[in-house]
């Protein structure tokens, strides 16, 4: 324990004063140590995302020391027998070598991949928590926007990650990306030709472009957004539930950063690392040797991308088949709806939520205390409907798996989902609003009952 012996305390004091004389940091350290963290399990989701990001950077740096980002042609001679003598790109060969011939290489690659999946999952759950508790309200709108931008940057980052490997899964994903780029109204073809340096599958520099984006540009962007996100959280302080009477809009109640929060948070970080290493060691992910090198004339429905792209697969598949055309000009090619417009609408609606809510409620004050979902039936109902909409589209992306494994007819499923994505969210909206109202009513009854009991007891005592 700190301060156990005078010598130890003296040392810490001297070190801090030494630092303070050179940086002026003592007041900041003093304040930082007692920075308050309100306590609730759901506040840890953002932390898990942060720690997954740290794991991604750490394992990712290791991977770059072995991966050769090149479409240059070579022949496989590594230790994986089924591919002996197969022509492939340097990128794919080095990814295979990393997996089979570099000790702990497979662990790092799989841990990296798992960390990406956990990272996005933690961000999404964190976002849903923030949404349903109304934490995005004034004064935290910017924190919310930055978080959303981080989520969407991360999706692109993850997509590029598995696309660089140049196995069949990479190529199919990139073909779809190319199709979506082409589908941007009017400028799509120019965009795609510029990005790929020519028609698909593009020139050899395209691999370098993916690589620099994946290991440099996008990570720096994510880290910058992350820094801004955390700086804003710290400057406005955390939100809190009204866990006690002391927690109000003006007073924050929580555990100090030191000593209470630091070991807890470090513990969570280490636990996250442990979970990711355990997954990376024991649960196979993206077995890049399974599908072989990408050839443009090959595609399979067995190769499935990471979960966080499922909603886009679903939206691309659900869209009825038409290209919106005027005469011979294709105004909106089909993939634009599901591949570009749909995610932009989701981003736009979520991004506008704080302002939409303000329009509907007229509430303009500062908010530090969180709502329970039932306390804001309008927001909760809208959120439930909106996330149901996205979730149904996401699930529809697995209709082919349901066909293969459960024998459900694919085309009937798609027609079911086309109707369900419109009807079910509406139902969810009204049901959720009703449930919130009922919960609020039952709260009121409970309160009235307690008040009456107190009164009766007081009367009894008086008598």
């Amino acid at each position, binding site marked *: *324990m700190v301060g156990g012996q005078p010598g130890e305390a003296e040392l810490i004091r001297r070190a801090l004063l030494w630092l303070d004389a050179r940086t002026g940091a003592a007041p900041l350290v003093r304040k930082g140590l*007692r920075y*308050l963290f309100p306590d609730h399990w759901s506040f840890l989701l953002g932390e898990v995302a942060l720690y997954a990001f740290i794991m991604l950077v750490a394992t990712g740096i290791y991977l770059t020391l072995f991966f050769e980002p090149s479409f240059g042609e070579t022949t496989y001679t590594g230790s994986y027998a089924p591919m002996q003598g197969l022509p492939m790109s340097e990128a794919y060969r080095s990814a295979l070598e990393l997996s089979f011939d570099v000790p*702990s290489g*497979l662990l790092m690659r*799989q841990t990296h991949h798992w960390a990406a999946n956990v990272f996005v999952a933690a961000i999404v759950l964190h976002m849903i928590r923030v949404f349903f508790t109304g934490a995005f309200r004034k004064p935290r709108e910017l924190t919310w926007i930055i978080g959303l931008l981080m989520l969407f940057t991360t999706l692109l980052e993850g997509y590029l990650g598995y696309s660089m490997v140049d196995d069949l899964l990479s190529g199919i994903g990139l*073909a779809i990306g*190319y*199709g979506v780029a082409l*589908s941007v109204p009017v*400028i799509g*073809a*120019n965009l795609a*030709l*510029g990005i790929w*340096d020519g*028609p*698909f599958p593009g*020139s050899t520099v395209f691999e370098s472009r993916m690589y620099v984006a994946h290991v440099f540009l996008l990570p720096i962007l994510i880290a910058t957004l992350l820094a801004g996100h955390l700086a804003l959280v710290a400057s*406005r*302080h955390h939100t809190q539930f009204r866990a006690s009477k*002391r927690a109000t809009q003006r*007073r*924050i*109640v*929580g*555990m100090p950063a030191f*000593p*209470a929060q630091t*070991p*807890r948070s470090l*513990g969570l*970080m*280490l*636990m996250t*690392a*442990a979970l990711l290493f*355990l997954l990376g*060691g*024991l649960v196979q992910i993206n077995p890049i040797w399974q599908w072989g090198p990408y050839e*443009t*004339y*090959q*595609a*399979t*429905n067995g190769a499935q991308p990471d979960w966080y792209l499922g909603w886009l697969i679903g939206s*691309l*598949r*659900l869209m009825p*088949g*038409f290209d919106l055309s005027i005469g011979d*000009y*294709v105004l909106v*090619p*089909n*993939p634009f709806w599901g591949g570009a417009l749909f995610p932009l609408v989701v981003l736009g609606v979520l991004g506008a939520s704080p302002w939409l809510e303000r329009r509907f409620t007229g509430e303009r004050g*500062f908010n530090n205390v969180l709502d329970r979902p039932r306390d804001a039936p309008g927001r909760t109902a809208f959120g439930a409907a909106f996330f149901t909409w996205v979730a149904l589209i996401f699930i529809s992306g697995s209709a082919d798996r349901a066909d293969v494994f459960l024998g459900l007819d*694919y085309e009937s499923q*798609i027609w079911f989902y086309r109707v369900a994505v419109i009807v079910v969210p509406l139902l969810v909206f009204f049901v959720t609003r009703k449930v919130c109202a009922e919960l609020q009513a039952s709260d009121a009854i409970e309160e009235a009952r307690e008040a009456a009991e*107190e009164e009766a007891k007081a009367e009894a005592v008086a008598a």
Partner: protein
Amino acid sequence: MRRLWQGLLAVLTLGLGRRRERRRDEGEGDSGGGRGHDLVEPGPHNPGTELGVAALFLLAAASAVAFIVVYSLERFPAQHELFGVTLAAAFGFLGAGLIVLARRVLPSEELEEDYPEEEHVEAGIEAATIVEESGRSITRKRLLTAAGGTAGGAIGLAALTPALSLGPWFHTEPLRRTPWRAGRRLVDREGKPYRAEEIERETFYTAFPEGASHRTLGSMLVVVRLDPARLRLPRERADWAPEGILAFSKVCTHAGCAVGLYRKPTYPPTQPPPGLVCPCHYSTFDPALGGEVVFGPAGRPLPQLPLAIDGAGELRARGNFSNAIGPAWWGVNLEKPS
């Protein structure tokens, strides 16, 4: 009554907590602040738990050493799995130790303080005034703003110009180009020409133009054979499918995946007719109808390639595709493939 008691207790602790907090604040002022024990609440004192925490830390160390040992042994059985387990154990035990330490040994104080000031109106107004007053000596504000804006915009454009070298942004012609010409033979992956008699029903073949790259989207074909009596091709394509052999571009017109699935009815009377299916988003094209979309998101038919059987019984192209190959874009329908 119990709630009342709890409330009373809460108020009491709150009051005491407040007082203690105040004392701390006072303590901060004098030079000896930070020495004594009055800044941090005393912890719960759990010497037994401290032993447990130490044990967890040592287990973490042992696991880390185990990882190093596993690494240093060449070709250890299940080495990869053991890497994961040992490393996870090292981090997990250390993390567990820290969490136990935090919960059972170190003080878990619940403190309170004011939220930061909501707004700094005065500072904001002063900052705005500084900006405003700094420009008071300017008389031609609009002119300067316009000129400055023009400079900024032009420099921005100049800075973006090198991005034009990234690719053939404006040369959309290659999107229409395919290697198919009249007389070109259809060959398989190894370059062996396809003979008409090899093409069987109820399966499909991938073909390429003889001597051309396999990688460009315009080259790959999917070839199937159907009962000629069942074909319902557009009138102008009446002679495109000799013996009922049909060739289509293998690039899905939806998002550019290879059309890699062939749906063939196992019991034709009740099942849908043969279909070429893209495994990415399940656009389904009917070869008997000349590649028309019968299901899924594709907005354009699969381009058909006119075929002929030459004197040697080999398959040859009779020209280029019926329409542009690949996913749709703004000008995809403006011209035929070249």
